[in-house]
């Protein structure tokens, strides 16, 4: 039983790796948006709103990893 607890804690840690990868993607998106604003400062409003929506959509992947981590820690179906 201790082994299962240890492994689920480890799995919760691994599942949060997804947020690191999403951070990479969001950084790339923000960099591209900064380039776009530098090229066309008058389009700042629409670029910003597209960026915010896009980042929020990309963040869903990180949220999946987070939800799986929370499930493993607080509501683990395997340990019941």
């Amino acid at each position: 039983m201790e082994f299962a607890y240890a492994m689920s804690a480890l799995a919760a840690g691994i599942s949060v790796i997804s947020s690191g990868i999403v951070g990479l993607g969001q950084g790339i998106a923000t960099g591209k948006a900064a380039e776009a604003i530098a090229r066309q400062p008058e389009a700042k409003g629409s670029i910003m709103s597209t960026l915010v929506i896009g980042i929020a959509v990309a963040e869903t992947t990180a949220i999946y990893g987070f939800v799986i981590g929370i499930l493993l820690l607080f509501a683990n179906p395997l340990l019941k």
Partner: protein
Amino acid sequence: MDFNNKKILPLFEINGQTVWMTQSILGTWIIMAALILFTVFVNIYMRVKKFEDVPKPRSLQNVLEVAVDSMHNLVRDNAGNDLGWLGGYFFGVFVYIVCCNYAPLLKLRPPTADIATTLPLALNTFLLIHVLGLVKRKGEYLKDYVKPMFLFLPIHLIGELARPISLALRLFGNLLGGMIMIDLLYHALPLYFRIALPVPLHIYFDIFIGALQAFIFTFLSITFISEHASVEGE
């Protein structure tokens, strides 16, 4: 530490299973009562003060007109004029989610940090997408599923089923994450530091993320609906 939804009162029984009043149900009821009272107040105020159709309205009328108009314009811009009536529904959803996300400011557990609140909201969107798609576009709507060829049918079906799940989990995960971060900070700090130090976290996780996620939920719902239900060539 316990981040679960705590049970407060047993409400009634179905087949021997007790249905409990949880923290999120209590929060939902408080928010619903506040919103209903506000609506009744505005309705009476509107009749007493005689809101008029003037170019420069004042005070409460101004605020309400800006709020309602901007949501209707968002729907009209993204989904077309014939779906403009959805603005009322989405205004309600937006205000409800914002109030839910701001609940931690009053020491309540945010009802949106519970999958039982966000999944029904997402399923409403799911129903609206497909019912409106079928009613507005009929055969054209069904053709969407076999574009560009018949082999893509399972991919389209999985994509459609993933939409409500991703909508629900996005709102739920963001709010739960924020709640856990703030709770951890409160537990880590000694009692006399809890007055000022958590304020930046409240500003970011509750006020900024709360408003952003509410907007994203409504905006994505509108976009999904317009994708399937807008008549092309408008």
